[in-house]
């Protein structure tokens, strides 16, 4: 009996915690970066990325252009705010369009908000900058913007909009953009099949709600995965679906930073459960899907960058269940974002005022 229990425990751990069987090495692409935040891989030698401090930078033919791209809108660089998420248009090779999310200051006021612009990438600059989304209402805080983006297969754009920290209860109401996933067309218009379009009390851009600070989102075969920071504990990985309520802050697995109970409840009918949550927090900061074969053991895995203690979580999801979990790259410190490159390598952005862009290559 005892032996059987030990074998069972062994099997459980063999499924959930797997030691890396891939040998890899790091190659530094760029260093001394000012809070690198969002990555978009154009091809194996060209990467465009944001620095929270307000710079849009580019690695061209494998080398960092020392000059930031010009034409970037004014950003509020304070607290967690600044130039944040970036994504390429699905037809980027033809139209050179990019989308950038950032915290924008309200002119003449002490408030700011999450804004998303589209722009055309030129050599050394961006042009045709057009605002396609501005979160409403504005906030007084400089935290919890979300500010990541992903494209659905129909070409509509999903934008994560965080709860603004002080406004967490607003995540449960549909008359504002706090704690929501937003869905818009790339010109800023509202898709006619958005889930709350017929609800006159709801903002039409809202796609899902009850989120906290969502900093990773990716779409895999039509399935939307998003990860969000919990408070003290309670970080979540969710499968996001239209019109669904993800519960924050009515249900949560975390506590407030003061130690207070935000909610003693972890579940309620009509509110979705995460497919994975982390207590204590890992501070999930970005997400990518790895479908290449350079590292065959990692093929078809979600890669989630984490700030605490600093690593990448590789997760395999089958039928909405985590079947594998592995901790990677734990020797680099806080990792702000992760992306996969067309050549099968993995690109990482380390966090902080002396951040780096690192390529993970086969050893």
């Amino acid at each position, binding site marked *: 009996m005892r032996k059987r229990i030990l074998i069972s425990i062994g099997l459980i751990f063999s499924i959930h915690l797997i030691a890396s069987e891939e040998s890899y090495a790091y190659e530094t692409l760029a260093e001394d970066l000012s809070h690198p935040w969002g990555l978009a891989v154009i091809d194996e030698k060209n990467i465009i990325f944001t620095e929270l401090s307000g710079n849009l930078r580019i690695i061209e033919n494998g080398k960092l252009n020392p000059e930031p791209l010009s034409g970037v809108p004014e950003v509020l660089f*304070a*607290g*967690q705010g600044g130039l944040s998420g970036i994504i390429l248009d699905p037809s980027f090779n033809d139209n050179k369009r990019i989308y950038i999310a950032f915290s924008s200051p309200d002119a003449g006021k002490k408030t700011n908000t999450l804004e998303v612009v589209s722009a055309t990438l030129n050599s050394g600059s961006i042009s045709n900058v057009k605002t396609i989304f501005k979160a409403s209402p504005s906030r*007084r*805080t*400089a*935290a919890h913007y979300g500010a990541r983006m992903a494209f659905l297969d129909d070409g509509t754009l999903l934008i994560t909009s965080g709860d603004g*920290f*002080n406004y*967490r*209860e607003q995540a*449960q109401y549909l008359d504002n953009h706090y704690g929501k996933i937003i869905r818009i067309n790339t010109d800023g218009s509202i898709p006619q099949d958005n889930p709350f379009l017929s609800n006159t009390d709801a903002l039409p851009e809202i796609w899902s709600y009850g989120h906290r600070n969502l900093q990773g989102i990716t779409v895999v075969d039509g399935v939307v995965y998003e990860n969000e920071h919990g408070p*003290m504990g309670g970080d979540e990985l969710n499968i996001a679906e239209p019109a669904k309520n993800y519960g924050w802050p*009515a249900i949560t697995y975390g*506590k*407030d*930073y*003061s*130690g*207070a*109970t*935000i*909610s*003693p*409840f972890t579940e*309620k009918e009509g509110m979705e459960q995460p497919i994975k949550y982390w207590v204590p927090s890992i501070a999930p900061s970005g997400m990518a899907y790895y479908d290449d074969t350079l590292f065959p053991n990692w093929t078809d895995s979600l890669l989630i960058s984490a700030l605490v203690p600093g690593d990448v979580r590789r997760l395999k999801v089958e039928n909405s269940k985590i079947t594998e979990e592995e901790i990677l790259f734990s020797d680099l410190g806080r990792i702000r974002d992760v992306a996969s490159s067309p050549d099968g390598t993995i690109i990482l952005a380390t966090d902080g005022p002396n951040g780096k862009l690192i390529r993970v290559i086969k050893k």
Partner: protein
Amino acid sequence: MILNSLNLLLSILIATCLVILQETMSNMFWLISVDMPVTFGVFVSTYFSNLLLMNGGGAIPIVVLIAVGFLIAYTVAKILLIWINVSKANAYALAGAAAIMAIVLLMPLAFYNLDVLAGGRSILGKTILVFFGLVSGYYFGKSLEKQRV
């Protein structure tokens, strides 16, 4: 001296318990408003859990924060009482209120306008917290007056 210290400690503990009560009520009332099943038992167990975790499981123990605030405010009140002729109860009540006001107003300035005490996010919440500071300070001042009698 020992009695003064005991009264100071009690004043800090009263403020801590009241601040945590306000934090708990603020969260529970909102949960009730969105139809979460908050019963009296849930309320009480959450309050006691908060008493423990807000003093040992959070970023800063709230009792330490209040103690520092009260020590500074009470010291200033004691000095001012040399020149100003008001009752100790009133002077220390104002000092207690000022200490809590400083905590709820200054903490957000240090954290990009983030209110770490969720119960103090609204003007009403801040007012209640300051009132609790006043009550705790009044208790301390009154206890000093009683000693003199």
